[in-house]
């Protein structure tokens, strides 16, 4: 094969690791700051490049299997970390994000997937890419929101006030919720064209609805004068529902008849 996943993954992890190290040293030597950022950024760039080459080699978007979706998370999650640093001057989130991305890549290295070009007819739809990409970006936002919330909880336990951090987890959850709504509706519109009905309570649909409800609940609790600080636990744990929806569904008894159990090649 012309491309090699392991090389790309190791290069990306290497970039993130050295970038993170440099960034820690940059606290004392600010001159290193730019180099650290460039290196961390290069890690994601490597993954974006790999996804692009993989896409052209497969002749289809690499969004079909769980392993393929992990590639996208690995590329995108660190970018959210950099964005948050740029926007809110919060520096710690990017380390978590790069750690999470590394974790996804390691899973893929341990479970190499069979290279498969086929795409079943139902997936050959103009809705395929918008539906999955909107969900991917939404999940990335909510993952970052959950990590931020967890960090806020740990600060609270040490009795440190942290209004800025709470507003970061809040806005990430808000943006994530908007993207979940779009993903859900795009999925419904696609389902009508491919399977004949927009909503059939397929287990994946049910869990997508559940995770949507979880964040809908959060937003209304926020609206109803409930202290945001108290909701950090809730935000941190909501992501677990998303994780069940993303891949946990495959292991549930209800998944036997699902159209969403990704092909296990």
């Amino acid at each position, binding site marked *: *094969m012309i491309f090699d996943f392991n090389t790309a993954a190791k290069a990306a992890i290497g970039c993130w690791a050295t970038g993170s190290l440099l960034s820690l040293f940059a606290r004392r030597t600010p001159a290193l700051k730019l180099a650290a950022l460039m290196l961390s950024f290069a890690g994601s760039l490597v993954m974006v490049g790999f996804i692009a080459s993989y896409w052209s080699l497969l002749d289809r978007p690499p969004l079909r299997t769980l392993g393929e979706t992990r590639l996208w998370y690995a590329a995108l999650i660190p970018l959210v970390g950099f964005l948050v640093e740029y*926007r*809110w001057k919060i520096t710690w989130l990017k380390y978590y994000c790069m750690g999470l991305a590394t974790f996804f890549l390691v899973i893929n290295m341990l479970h*190499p997937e*069979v*290279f*498969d*070009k*086929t*795409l*079943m*007819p*139902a997936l*050959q*739809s103009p809705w395929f890419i918008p539906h999955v990409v909107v969900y991917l970006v939404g999940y990335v936002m909510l993952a970052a929101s959950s990590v931020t919330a967890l960090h806020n909880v740990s600060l609270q336990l040490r009795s440190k006030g942290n209004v800025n951090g709470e*507003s970061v987890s809040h*806005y990430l959850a*808000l*943006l994530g919720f*908007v993207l979940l*709504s*779009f993903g859900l*509706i795009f999925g*419904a*519109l696609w389902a*009508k*064209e*491919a*399977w*004949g*009905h*927009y*909503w059939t*309570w397929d*287990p994946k649909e*049910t*869990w997508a*609805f*559940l995770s949507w*409800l*979880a964040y*809908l*609940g959060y937003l*209304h*609790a926020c*609206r*109803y004068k409930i202290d945001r600080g108290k909701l950090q636990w809730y935000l941190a744990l909501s992501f677990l529902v998303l994780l069940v929806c993303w891949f946990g*569904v495959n292991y*549930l*008894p*209800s998944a*036997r*008849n699902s159209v969403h159990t990704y092909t296990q090649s």
Partner: protein
Amino acid sequence: MVVVRRRWFQTPWEFRESSLVAALTVVAGFMLQYATGQGLPPLHLPVNAVVLALFAALILGAGLWFRENTLVQWLGGIPLGLSLIVAIALLSLIGGVIPQGEAMPGSLSALFGVHQIFSSWPFALSILLFLVNLGLSLSWRLVPFSMKNIQFILFHAGFWIALSCGVFGAPDLQRMVVKVDEGQESNLAWSMEHETEQQLPFSIFLHDFSLEEYPPQLFLYDPQKNQPLQERNKTTTTLHKGVKASWTDVDVEVVDFLPSALPGKDGVPEPAESKAGVPFAKLRIVTADAAPIEAWISTGSPMMKPWAVPFRGLYFVMMPGTPKAFRSDVTVRGESGQLERATLEVNHPINVMGWKLYQMGYDDEVGRWSKYSLIEVIRDPWLPAVYLGFFMIMAGNVLFFWNGIKQKEVAS
């Protein structure tokens, strides 16, 4: 500061009372389910539309005329809304974990409707109360109207319309399957839900069914373990001329590949354009300890046995590719004689006389040699209303996103 403890049911009602009412709704639903032994009686057009219109008018009327009433305010408030979101989420959780549709008749879980949770009484009552809650909160933002509330109105009204029309309109959804043989016409549809056959107001004539496959693949098959051996690079080998593959100490090269061929007089495959043609590949098998072997393999077809190459107790076999696309060339004839020719394909349904026609399936046993096509016919008169709701939700979300970003600027 003196903390005054709220008593139960002290006005205004808060989360405690709301959670209690939500829980009682669910319990009452399960009791109703147990007592009646079935879910809601299905209401069809026009009855369901009238009931929905009355329901909406009632909510709007109550919201506008009694907006100062504490009970109405509580009914449309966030505490009840949140409690119902939790109730609906818990019921959905049951539906998301327990397989739906397969119940042991007479079992306790079947009696409480756990296997049909989404058409059960507890779910229906929770949704109805949720619609009351959502509708009331909406009525207060609608009147007096202000552009400031447009994002709230779009999202909540969209959700109300999509949810209510989806729920009230569900009994009017008709889903049936028509099986048509090539060169034949049929107007008989089978309803899997009701297990009945029904005449359609149109008929479908099938000119041709065709199926396109991905290229076939090469496997080294172990008949004892009944599974293929893993290739050295852990890849699957898609067949085309010049492709190479290796298993432990054996190297294979495809020296010739014919996508559509038939065996000639001397047994050597010759290219054939006809529909009966099958793919053939000529393999060159090289090992360290023996002279190279050259032999043909093929997927075979219902008319021809597959060709395999035996090798040390194993077999080199060609597996047909998975379906890439399948389509039916049809003519639909209405009751008044109007004709419409169309091609049905997965993801490309057609609209005919208020029905939507979908390419559903074919004879799986023979794949592309299937002599019939399964066409799904669907009618959902409530679809435009549900879609209106969807688009309002999306429009509301765009504004939410936009405002979220704008507020972010203020926050930082």
